[in-house]
């Protein structure tokens, strides 16, 4: 029974992991930039939801579209100001400079957040926050289930967008080979812009769920960045479709693992998984054939 409970709660948190990671995977898969500030954007999404709740008393699930809009605009600005100028550098320098710039952005965002909201944890407590029900002896919270449902809906919507619409196909094409895609008449810059804004929007949604289930702090972005990075590595860098499954896998293995070795070492399990993946399957666990080297 305890194991089942652990697996179920692992699945619930795993869905959140998948949602937190998909934005990072999208930016890396499409643009080959590593956005270190992804965790900070997750936190900003959480803070946006917190502010709407504290100032306007909007329920986080109702204010979600508004948060998504705010984060989308933020993503547009982020790409235009910080990532677009990087395109003048050569391939290797692009990755390095994106690391440096987004690291600088972390300093700006985190310290601004500390000034605006202090470094104390903020969370949203609604009427239904603690509410839960039992089914077959397993305790489930409404928020956990709602969050998981939301994550699944968002991921499905993203999947449909990427596979069924023309623009989504263009994004996939660029992820596979941007030079060939640009020869086929796809506007690279515009596609980058929109996919970056989408990624930041998804980070914001994850942030809303985090502020509901846990809490946000200005420096908390780092730990969510690491989780997102572990999930993306597990799925294989640039492989968008494995990310959700990898998130579930990480969530379940953390939940079950913390039963075995204690919950204070939960973070260690994540790092162990990262290390093993990097050592043995640097292209991710869902890739069948290993290429010559990993990027």
């Amino acid at each position: 029974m305890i194991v089942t409970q652990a697996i179920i709660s692992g699945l619930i948190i795993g869905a959140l992991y998948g949602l937190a990671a998909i934005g990072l995977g999208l930016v890396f898969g499409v643009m080959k930039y590593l956005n270190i500030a992804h965790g900070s954007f997750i936190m900003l999404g959480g803070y946006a939801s917190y502010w709407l709740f504290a100032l306007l008393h909007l329920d986080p699930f109702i204010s979600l579209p508004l948060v998504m809009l705010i984060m989308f605009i933020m993503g547009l600005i982020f790409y235009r100001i910080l990532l677009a100028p990087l395109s003048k550098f050569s391939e290797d320098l692009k990755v390095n400079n994106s690391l440096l710039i987004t690291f600088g952005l972390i300093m700006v965002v985190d310290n601004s957040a500390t000034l605006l909201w202090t470094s104390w944890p903020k969370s949203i407590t609604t009427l239904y926050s603690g509410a839960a029900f039992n089914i077959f002896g397993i305790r489930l919270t409404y928020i956990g289930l709602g969050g998981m449902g939301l994550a699944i809906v968002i991921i499905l919507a993203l999947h449909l967008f990427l596979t069924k619409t023309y623009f989504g196909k263009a994004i996939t094409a660029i992820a596979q080979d941007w030079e060939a895609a640009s020869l086929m008449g796809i506007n690279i810059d515009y596609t980058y812009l929109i996919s970056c804004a989408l990624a930041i929007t998804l980070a914001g949604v994850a942030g809303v769920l985090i502020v509901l289930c846990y809490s946000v702090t200005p420096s908390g972005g780092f730990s969510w960045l690491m989780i997102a990075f572990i999930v993306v590595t597990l799925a294989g860098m640039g492989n968008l479709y494995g990310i959700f499954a990898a998130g579930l896998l990480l969530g379940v293995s953390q939940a079950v693992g913390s039963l075995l070795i204690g919950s204070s070492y939960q973070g260690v399990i994540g790092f162990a998984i990262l290390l093993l993946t990097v050592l043995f399957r640097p292209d991710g666990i869902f890739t069948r054939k290993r290429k010559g080297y990993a990027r």
Partner: protein
Amino acid sequence: MRCSRGKKFLLIGIVVGILALGPLYMRTDIVGLFIVLFIHIILAQSWNLIGGYAGQINLGLAAFFGSGALVTHLIWIGGANSFMALLAAGMTGLVLSAVVGFPTLRLRGIYFSMGTLAIAMTAEILVSNLFSGALRAPSIFAAGFTAESRYYVGLISTMISLLTMYLIARSRFGVGLRATRDDEDAARVTGVNTTKLKIEAFLISGFMAGIAGGIFTYYYLTIWPEFQFSTLWTFVPLMIVCIGGMGTLMGPVYGSLILVIIEHIFSRTLGAAHLIIFGIVFIIAVLYFPGGIADGLSKAQKILEGFFSSKKGLTKPTHDTRMAGETRI
């Protein structure tokens, strides 16, 4: 205007001489500021070796620096002499970099960056759980340890690290590192063992960062483990190198000079907000001035040279066979 070899050595000799006699004529707080400058130069050179020369972005320098500071403190309190404590700090940095470097440097850049970031985060959490508040050295240590001796420890370590960087930059090893940075595939094809070079560079870099932490402990005597392991100690050296000029010998020195002065002024007047300004300046520097101050200075020198030679109406015969874009050491 370009200095000949002899003139260069004379200049370096004069600067070192002025610095070596420093404590004789400087005010105590200025001596302190110089020690802070030395710590920053060593840290920045440590980052520069792996980031500027080898092109691997280390985002966890704070862990190396912090563990150096912590180990020096513990060993020193334990009764070992100060030299051994400093050496132990360097060795800690080296061991830590071996732990991160061996799994991640076999792969391309981002794994290394995220690996170092992960180590820094884990170390920060671990240390804040283990030690709370300040760790003070007993007053016996303070009594037997004057400001001058701390100054000289800093000065000598800085000189050694600069000399090391100078020798590395001119050696085959340095050329290999730069080749790895510029095009890893091409370097590999030409027979450079890029993984080995990167790991060696990272070990040296970790050693230097540990030493910087040790000097920090010597200077302040009291350390705050949570503060030493904070992201600030990754960000400041990174910013110094990017502003000064990545992959140059003198860039980090210029960068440290400017940043230590600015930080000294800003952190008093603005508090935490100065980091926001620093972040913005850093981003602008990376985006629009990738060469940094070192590049700007060499450009300015060239313009001046052109200006003076045209004024005299003489065209100097150029014996310099260097290529236009080549990095000057």
